[in-house]
């Protein structure tokens, strides 16, 4: 799969400089930034800002607890805590703490999609704060650990190595 794509990409690269259809406009860096952050698993793309779980506590109560519960135990929205050690049991509980492999992606998701009914209301710093709080509730970071573009990428999530490639076809038919 990889070799094929590299070969094709190389072929496409050759005609890169010329525009065949003359459509579109080249956006400036500012315009691209204006689309909003897109964060890689290692934290590349995280914006400026920093906060601790202490700062996130109040904000979580105001903006998240209504749906996720006071302690993020889940309500209208899914549970965000607990479940560590359950993935290989008959009742797995998949949460940010037990299942999500990369902390920067929690920032990315909360920033793009939460609060569910008011996405976009939180500032970048506020997103760091609620994410720090959720990580703290899961026992992954300390209450006073400062989360920012650098430190969030260094947080080791418990299920960091929990994802494996697709081995299908895997089922034997009778």
């Amino acid at each position, binding site marked *: *799969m*990889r070799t*094929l*794509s*590299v070969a*094709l*990409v*190389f072929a*496409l*690269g050759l*005609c*890169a*400089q010329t*525009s*065949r*259809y003359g*459509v*579109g*406009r*080249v*956006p400036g860096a500012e*315009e*691209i930034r204006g*689309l*909003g952050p*897109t*964060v*890689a*698993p290692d934290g590349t793309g995280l914006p400026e800002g920093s906060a601790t779980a202490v700062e996130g506590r109040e904000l979580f109560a105001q903006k998240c607890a209504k749906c996720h519960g006071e302690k993020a135990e889940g309500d*209208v*929205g899914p549970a965000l805590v607990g479940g560590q050690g359950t*993935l*290989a049991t*008959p009742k*797995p509980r998949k949460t*940010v703490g037990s*299942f*999500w*492999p*990369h902390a920067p*992606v929690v920032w*990315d*998701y909360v920033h*793009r*999609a939460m609060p*569910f009914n008011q*996405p976009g209301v939180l500032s970048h710093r506020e997103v760091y704060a609620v994410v720090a709080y959720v990580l703290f509730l899961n026992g992954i970071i300390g209450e006073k650990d400062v989360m920012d573009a650098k430190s969030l990428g260094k947080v080791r999530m418990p299920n960091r190595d*929990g*994802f*494996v*490639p*697709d*081995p*299908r*076809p*895997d*089922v*034997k*038919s*009778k």
Partner: protein
Amino acid sequence: MMGRAEEARTLGKPLSGYTERSVYVKAERATRQSKTPEAGSSATPLADMMGIITPSALHYERHHAGVPTIDPEQHRLTVHGMVERPLVLTMAEIQRMPSVSRIAFLECGGNSGGEWGALTGPTAQRACGLASCSEWTGVPLRLVLEECGLKPGAAWLIAEGADACRMQRSVPVEAALGEALLAYGQNGEPLRPSQGFPLRLLTPGWEGNLQVKWLRRLLVTDQPYMTRDETSKYSDLMPDGKARIFTLMMEAKSVVTFPSGGQRLPGRGLYELTGLAWSGQGLIERVEVTLDGGRSWQAAVLQEPRLPKAFTRFRLAWQWDGKPAVIASRAVDETGYVQPGKEELIAARGLNSGYHFNGIKLWKVAADGSVANADA
């Protein structure tokens, strides 16, 4: 005048600009009660469908933050990242490029998720209805990427929607260079809002969630971004606690839609058994039907045209003797892959994987003609 039916004694409705269906036709998508109906799914009434095309108004839905209302004049697609020339495209510009139309099924990675457990779907709609089939029109994504020029090492596209959750998925570049479309048309008209108006990604044969609707951005990268909807959701948790990721292709599947759960046969006699089959790997090669709970299988007739990665309709003349029967279908695709039974799926993946269920669905016909879920 005597003896004329009402509709032949009064004038009918005049011409109109847009046709509604007959008041006697009631088929609807099935939804569930939810406190957050913007994040959920509605299932196609498969047993009410004819042929292979799903009417756009009945195409299944799966949204994570509701259906946005987007002005196509304002909508832009931005391609950036590992490209020689980042580009912002208007809808008019996208529609100026060479287009193609093709028929393809779309199936949610979570379709039939309930079938893994004990509470299986009582109807074809509830059991398998997060699958539909349309004719899609759009620009091959490959052409747009050629305009931008992929840099060496470009391997993934991070696709982003313009909806309230800015739905985001990592798409392998192989898909983009293959059959993927930037689709703006569905069944002869612009996409319905619930299918991504004005623009969606279409990667035929792959799970629905990947085919980001209301597409506003493609960020070209060298790695997947492990987004929420490819890790927390749509990944398959195995018994050892590891989760399979990027199980994108939807394996061959089929379901008998008549007779199917919730229906009733009026009495013994000749019926046309029918159903739908599809495979993310290409053509449906064969569909076999059992009338005796899997002891024996016979080939169904496949309706032409048979198209790769599209619904294929199958039929079988069936003389019902009025005795209880357990019926099901089993699809075989062009790679020789055989649709498995539920037990075989569970043996391979356990009970916690949740997604990508393509097992055989059994219906039982009772002596009184009522048809019900045989796996309940």
